[in-house]
């Protein structure tokens, strides 16, 4: 190989335009489209930057944010003080949206697999080629009448699930497995069955008593910053009619001494999965000591007070103590306090809803609010207030074909798919899939028994064609046949209406701070394009572009329409009716959204499928067969991470990048484990190794491991790999431990009613290695 300058220049001189640069998408030619310079010749900064109002999506809370753009780049994301929910507060994740956008390991071009699946050999393809391949496959399936063999799955998309569903239905498949709700499946089903809403909004800012079961709002409630700031408010100095109000009481039931437990008036280290027993016993005390709200039960519940009291009698505090380990005297006292303090509310999230008995337990917790008359009152347990968005006509009909995946027969009340069971069900032969498309969905990492799922995803007989739409090279993308680069939330145009804490619903816009990087495309644009290319009548359901679609979605909101619709939102980021006053007891107008129009203490729908129609406690099966040396494994979420989407964010992973297993000091001593020792955590499904963190603040029969860490793809930061290209970076990426994920050792176990995963029902043994 001989190279001389002269030689090179000689060729440079003789070569003419015969050498065309590249094929298809021509980066260079496009990039160097030379236009006369703009006015901004100066390279100095110091100019005041105009904030672009938008909406965060680094978690479900969807806070109001501002993007600051300078010279074509997003330089900062900050909070929007005008946003009614987040009111100028923003967590680390929200600010690290910049990292997601400028992820040094971002997927920016369509890729096609070369060689065996999972080998990691790829070829870049053009979008044109990608579209042609996808369209051809979908047309073939359609021609063969096998539309239902196209399955579209996305388990954490709360924003664009409507258009994803629309796409699937217009195409003709019932397999739009894109449903999700804040708080998860089990919460949603329990809440729907009880009072017809997806989840509750505890009005903590105005309450006097906060009773928390299995929730850690100081780190991880589904409404995050918007929620915790109101608890802080209720716990600080507040005034009413110029008088100082006492701070709200905060009682926490949690196996872990969390940030929330630590800030509470009382922390009760409860045995995991037994919250239902405690809540039932409290309800029993309230009912049997006559402390209940006669009027609310009589008028708005579907079960008479005397009958309820009789039913609850057997659930005594002593009974609950035996099950949960919480002293009966405390249960009694807290029950009385809760009933005597008005308003009061409960808070319950993962600790309640990530078990096999979640739906029952959640109903027990909800019951406490009903019997004390705290339902949808100021400072109580409120219905979520938000706007529903309209679907433009014509609306595609739901395909009538029966789908096991979309409505598994063994989960009659789950109303939608059971996400963690989808791939295993395909394996079991309960559904045939020819084309599997996923969007921002990473089951290989984030699902229980993830390694099993990886094996299934690798199996080309099981899943012949898999297209991943994502902006990261995830563990699942690594096993795909094609990867399509998706725009991140900082590059997309979308509408949101998160539940309003001021009880006045609002609409909030997400708008691109900058154009999608590389060849990334927003999911809505992608689906619209695909629909038009597939054609065959499907295109008439997509007679719009993304902007047109969003305009349609808000036409029914008169006030917003008058204010200027989408252009108003683009200017202001959000809209709400400024004259509206918060209203409570909204059920008084039309009743609850349940068959009886009442708060259903007794659920006919549950009775129909053989479940206990009344709030009850169902022991966790695995608990009944605990051996001497076995412990409960529970998981938790770090405040600076999402479950599985933020690991390659530098600012976040610098704070949390490894996760030890938290173990009680006494439990550790008995096993000869000291703080910092390497240990093996073993379950039926497998084992993982990590360091032990020995603490007092955890139930002695429990070990806890956080999620978000332990990636084996997802980029270099997620895997704590130094950026070898530059010596200085090793200093910046100073950590070398990437942590572990507990998911591989967690078995797939579902709540039979809600279908949601029992994340916290795994038995483990732990030993020093």
């Amino acid at each position, binding site marked *: 190989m001989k190279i001389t300058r002269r030689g090179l220049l000689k060729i*440079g001189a003789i070569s003419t335009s015969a050498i065309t640069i590249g094929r298809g998408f021509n980066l260079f030619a496009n990039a160097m489209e030379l236009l006369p310079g703009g006015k901004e010749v100066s390279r100095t900064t110091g100019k005041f930057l105009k904030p672009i109002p938008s909406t965060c999506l680094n978690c479900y809370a969807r806070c109001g944010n501002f993007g600051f753009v300078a010279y074509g780049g997003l330089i900062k994301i900050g909070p929007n003080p005008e946003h009614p929910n987040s009111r100028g507060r923003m967590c680390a994740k929200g600010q690290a949206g910049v990292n997601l956008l*400028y992820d040094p*390991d971002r997927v920016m071009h369509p*890729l096609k697999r070369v060689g065996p699946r999972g080998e990691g050999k790829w070829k870049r393809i053009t979008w044109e080629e990608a579209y042609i391949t996808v369209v051809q496959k979908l047309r073939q399936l359609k021609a063969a009448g096998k539309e239902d063999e196209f399955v579209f799955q996305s388990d954490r998309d709360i924003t664009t699930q409507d258009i994803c569903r629309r796409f699937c239905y217009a195409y003709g498949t019932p397999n739009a497995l894109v449903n999700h709700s804040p708080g998860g499946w089990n919460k949603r089903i329990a809440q729907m069955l009880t009072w017809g809403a997806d989840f509750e909004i505890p009005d903590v800012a105005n309450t006097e008593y906060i009773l928390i079961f299995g929730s850690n709002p100081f780190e991880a409630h589904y409404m995050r910053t918007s929620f915790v700031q109101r608890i802080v408010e209720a716990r600080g100095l507040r005034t009413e009619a110029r008088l100082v109000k006492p701070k709200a009481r905060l009682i926490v039931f949690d196996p872990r001494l969390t940030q929330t437990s630590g800030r509470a008036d009382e922390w009760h280290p409860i045995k995991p999965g037994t919250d239902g027993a405690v809540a039932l016993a409290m309800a029993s005390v309230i009912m049997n000591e006559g402390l209940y709200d006669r009027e609310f039960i009589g008028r708005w519940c579907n079960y008479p007070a005397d009958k309820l009291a009789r039913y609850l009698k057997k659930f005594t505090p002593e009974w609950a103590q035996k099950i949960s380990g919480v002293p009966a005297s405390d249960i009694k006292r807290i029950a009385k306090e809760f009933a005597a303090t008005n308003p009061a509310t409960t808070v319950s999230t993962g600790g309640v809803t990530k078990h096999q008995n979640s739906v029952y337990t959640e109903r027990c917790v909800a019951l406490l609010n009903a019997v004390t008359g705290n339902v949808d009152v100021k400072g109580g347990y409120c219905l979520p207030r938000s706007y529903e968005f309209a679907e433009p006509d014509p609306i595609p009909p739901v395909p009538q074909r029966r789908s096991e995946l979309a409505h598994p027969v063994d989960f009659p009340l789950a109303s939608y798919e059971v996400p963690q069971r989808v791939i295993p069900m395909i394996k079991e032969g309960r559904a045939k899939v020819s084309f599997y498309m996923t969007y921002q969905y990473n089951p290989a990492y984030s699902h229980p028994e993830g390694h099993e799922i990886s094996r299934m995803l690798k199996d080309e007989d099981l899943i012949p064609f898999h297209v991943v739409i994502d902006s990261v090279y995830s563990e699942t993308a690594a096993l795909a046949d094609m990867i399509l680069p998706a725009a991140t939330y900082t590059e997309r145009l979308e509408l949101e209406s998160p539940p309003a804490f001021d009880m006045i619903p609002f609409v909030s816009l997400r708008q691109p701070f900058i154009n999608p990087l590389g060849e990334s495309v927003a999911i809505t644009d992608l689906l619209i394009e695909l629909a038009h290319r597939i054609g065959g009548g499907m295109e008439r359901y997509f007679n719009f572009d993304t902007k047109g679609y969003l305009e349609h979605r808000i036409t029914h909101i008169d006030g917003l329409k008058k204010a200027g619709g989408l252009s108003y939102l683009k200017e202001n980021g959000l809209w709400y009716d400024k004259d509206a006053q918060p209203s409570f007891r909204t059920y008084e107008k039309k009743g609850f959204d349940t068959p009886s129009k009442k708060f259903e203490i007794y659920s006919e729908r549950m009775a129909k499928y053989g479940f206990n129609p009344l709030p009850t406690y169902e022991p966790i099966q695995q608990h009944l067969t605990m051996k001497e040396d076995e412990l409960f494994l529970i998981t938790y979420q770090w405040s600076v991470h999402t479950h599985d989407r933020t690991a390659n964010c*530098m600012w976040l992973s610098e704070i949390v990048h490894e996760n030890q297993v938290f173990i009680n000091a006494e439990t550790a001593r008995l096993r000869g484990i000291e703080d910092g020792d390497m240990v093996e955590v073993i379950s039926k499904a497998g084992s993982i190794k990590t360091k032990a963190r020995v603490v007092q603040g955890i139930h002695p029969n429990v070990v806890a491991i956080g999620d978000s860490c332990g990636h084996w793809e997802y980029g270099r930061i997620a895997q704590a790999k130094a950026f070898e290209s530059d010596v200085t970076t090793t200093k910046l990426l100073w950590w070398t431990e990437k942590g572990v994920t507990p998911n591989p050792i967690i078995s797939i176990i579902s709540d039979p009613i809600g279908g949601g995963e029992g994340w916290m029902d795994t038995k483990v043994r732990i030993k020093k290695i």
Partner: protein
Amino acid sequence: MDGYKGEDKEDMMESTENTARARAYEILAGFFSNEPTREMFDFLNEAISCSIEDTIEGIEVDFATMFIVPGNGLQPFESLYNRAPDEEPSLWGKATKDVAGFYRAYGVHIDESTGILPDHISVELGFMGHLIEREDNNAQRRFLEEHLLKWIPEFCDRVYSKANTDFYKGVSKLTKEFILSEYEAIKGEAR
């Protein structure tokens, strides 16, 4: 008159050389922006005077593996390499902004709809070609010193060691040699 003629000739030679240089930059840019066409393949064969025996697919996979699929440490963006000690690895880093400012100052505009980052190696090489066409020697020297030299030789070394094909080993070697020779030439001129 003779003297004038001579100067003309020198000017002409210089302008031919500049055309050749500008073309060379554009060609190199093309090697990093897309998988090669047949012509580019032949061109390289000739330029490095040895025969390359890679398969088309081998070259395409090599291209994607190194420059497109994340996580291999060879994304061709300056800001991932030319960083201050306290700057975290990120797209659109300080170097990117600096390069973007450079383009602006010289009246070059990148079509934003392409989503291409200003510090992609191809865009930088292409821009250098543009500066040569403008015959702005000062700007060339500055751009070389402040940007191209800061990362491209090192980047090419890494490509050379990671490439699975002769083609990209050739491309990286050629690019590095050319950039270094350019600096020698420009330095000589300035003296």
